[in-house]
């Protein structure tokens, strides 16, 4: 099934595309996009199922770091190409849509 490029999906993909080699974890992504973490998670999962994104658990000792391991996401090589192509073909999110998203915590 083709991925539907909603405004939220575009925001996540844009955030990942800013530096395709960089790994980002959920909180970073939700801060950068303004989306609530609960909204970002299903999108990341769908992107992963489509093969656009790969993810891994951070390799740390939670006791030493005093926090649970993070799950890092990054665009795959093919995913970066597909995402750029899809974004260039997609309608850019309008300012009003982004404002509504920011006010509603990413649930618009």
């Amino acid at each position, binding site marked *: 099934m083709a991925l539907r490029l909603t405004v939220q999906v575009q925001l996540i993909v844009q955030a990942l595309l800013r530096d395709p080699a960089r790994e980002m*974890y959920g909180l970073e992504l*939700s801060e950068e996009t303004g989306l*609530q973490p*609960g*909204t970002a*998670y299903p999108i990341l999962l769908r992107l992963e199922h489509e093969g656009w994104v790969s993810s891994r658990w951070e390799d740390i000792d939670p006791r030493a770091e005093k926090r*649970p*391991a993070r*799950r890092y996401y990054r665009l795959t090589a093919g995913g970066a190409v597909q995402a750029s192509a899809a974004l260039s073909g997609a309608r850019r999110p309008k300012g009003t849509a982004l404002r509504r998203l920011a006010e509603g*915590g990413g649930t618009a």
Partner: protein
Amino acid sequence: MMPSIDREERRKKRAPVIGFIVTAALLVSVLLPASWQWLPIAVGTSAAIAVGVTIDPPVGRRRRSGIRERRRGRSSGLSAHSRDDAGEAVDVAAHRWRTLAIVSRLMPRQPGRRWLAEAESLLSEIPAFQRAAAIRSYLRSAPHLIVMMWAREVQRRARLGPRRPG
């Protein structure tokens, strides 16, 4: 710190829910033909037991699991017995956290565990005042996720084919 809502209060809140489930099951079973009357009774009884067991698990079990999590260093301080700060807001967050754990059980095992682990990881780093909103967002997206995950799980099992005995 013990949760502000004590066991007795929880029991009082739970009783009408269980009563409603049982009454509804009986009413529906009366309306159905005799060969189907077992269905609402079975579903209602299961739901009533699930409500009774999951809302307030025995203190010993909760305490043990909290200690286990702390020993493993996996706890984020959100669950009722391992949280490290006080106040009503934290009680609410701990209550919602338990709801997240229950919701994760409605998902297929592996994706459900991953969802809960990611939620725990993220919520442990988020500022306390944003935590409730973040948990709400997880709960809001859960029904959609449950459907999506089960659809994928069914597809995966169909690809694997039927299980062979032995």
